[in-house]
């Protein structure tokens, strides 16, 4: 009994120390980042797109816009392919194919992002430049690369959600004379809706936080993009590009960029949690 309690205590300590890492990071980036936001002014910082640290201009609007645009593009691409995959894997493929495809999709998650970026620069960017014009390094390139990177997240959670729909729904729908496709779209997807929404939001969180691949394929221009073919700089790219050199106010402004990113990702995760809680009544995915 005493041994049990001891082990329980040790495990709790280990678990807490992992969480305290999170707390430490949170406190640190807010401590480093908040003062400059207040000093520059909240409006100036978030609503100006004038970023020129050497002149003391810190406005991150174009980076916020960049992150939003690239993430939206990636989500669109990711959702189309992930949902397709999830439907095929759960409904329309023989067990053999599904058991081969699913690990293959999950393998995508294991590829380092710098490899995605490299493949993007070498193949996708010249292709876009050749087919559509523009510099190639663009919103489009970033969206496609990120779209592929978030495939595994959205696919595997969506599969779980679809498989969690009781078999009786499926049987009932077929018994009422619905076709297989009608059953999938109108009954199963509808029943799995909240799980799928949570999957999409988690995918978005991953897309907005991705850095290396985006730096390599998005061009990192400071102007808000006017078309899909314009280069763009995201919040994460801005931090990673300039962090190595930054000091003083510049460094703090990059931490403030991190604070912005932190808040956005936290909101996305809370949304995902809330949506998935609604589904089951109490627990998250």
């Amino acid at each position: 009994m005493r041994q049990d309690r001891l082990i329980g205590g040790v495990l709790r300590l280990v678990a807490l120390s992992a969480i305290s890492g999170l707390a430490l990071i949170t406190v640190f980036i807010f401590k480093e980042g908040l003062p400059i936001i207040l000093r520059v002014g909240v409006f100036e910082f978030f609503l100006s797109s004038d970023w020129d640290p050497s002149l003391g201009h810190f406005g991150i609007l174009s980076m916020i816009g960049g992150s939003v645009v690239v993430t939206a593009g990636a989500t669109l691409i990711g959702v189309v392919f992930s949902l397709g995959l999830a439907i095929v894997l759960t409904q329309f493929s023989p067990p053999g194919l599904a058991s081969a495809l699913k690990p293959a999709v999950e393998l995508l998650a294991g590829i380092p992002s710098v490899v995605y970026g490299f493949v993007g620069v070498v193949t996708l960017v010249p292709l876009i430049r050749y087919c559509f014009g523009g510099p190639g390094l663009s919103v489009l390139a970033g969206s496609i690369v990120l779209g592929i990177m978030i495939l595994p997240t959205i696919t595997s959670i969506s599969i779980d959600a679809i498989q969690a729909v009781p078999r009786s729904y499926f049987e009932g729908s077929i018994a009422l004379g619905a076709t297989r496709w009608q059953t999938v779209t109108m009954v199963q997807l509808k029943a799995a809706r909240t799980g799928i929404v949570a999957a999409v939001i988690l995918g978005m969180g991953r897309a907005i936080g991705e850095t290396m691949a985006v730096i390599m394929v998005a061009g990192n221009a400071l102007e808000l993009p006017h078309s899909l073919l314009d280069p763009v700089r995201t919040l994460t790219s801005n931090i990673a590009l300039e962090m190595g050199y930054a000091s003083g106010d510049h460094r703090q402004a990059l931490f403030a960029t991190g604070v912005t990113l932190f808040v956005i990702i936290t909101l996305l995760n809370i949304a995902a949690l809330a949506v998935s809680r609604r589904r089951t009544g109490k627990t998250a995915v």
Partner: protein
Amino acid sequence: MIKAKFVFRGLGVTLVALASSVGCERASRHSVGLLGSTSIQPFAEVLAEQYMKKSPGQFVEVQGGGSTAGLQGAANGLADIGMCSRALTAQESSQFAQILIARDGLAVVVNLENPIVGLSLEQLRDVFAGRTTNWMEVGGRDGPIRPITREEGSGTRESFVRLVMKKERISRRAMTQESNGAVRELVKGDPATIGYMSLGLVGKELRAVVVGGAAPTVENVLAARYALVRPLLFVTRGAANPAAQAFVDFVLSTDGQKLLETEGLVRAE
């Protein structure tokens, strides 16, 4: 038997590794740490290699991170010598001792397919400020100009701003790449682009254009005909320690300077 042999060999390797790590520990007292500009880094590595070959027992470690990181490193003692690829500001020069190790031409590079031969400093400034947006306006083919710049804090960028842009700002439309290699890749693949980098790094896959009537060659830099020249500096906080000073002496010696020249830099004089 075979197994036993492997075990012994494994043990041997471990012992050697241990011994050498202990050795390193001891040598680190004589080791010199360099930190800073990624433009100087490749040259410093070559110098360090030659130096260590010449004077056994000395150990020189070279790290990148950028000019600003180099200054910081020298200031807080993280490095014995900071490497900085731009002129110091007035405040910085009062803070650090600086040693000019070489000069470097800043080349303006375009794609090999781009027919443009030369640009004046004003034209170059207009291009990077975003006022000139078509190659036709500066005597090239009809088509958009896509300037590529380096990230904030890069010594190459700061030198370019100081030498070309003066008080003007680089266009917000300019694409930003975080290394000379990335700039090279981009310019190599896209005929519409224009970028800048160290003269020693241009290579054969890009073309450096004539700026202000002078071709970017070592002779023109030496004769002060080529306008875009920046200093490559070693900085220390106060006097360098003896081990670091020995390395600096080597870099400034005839051998060291010759080495830098063969690598494409221009000697300090």
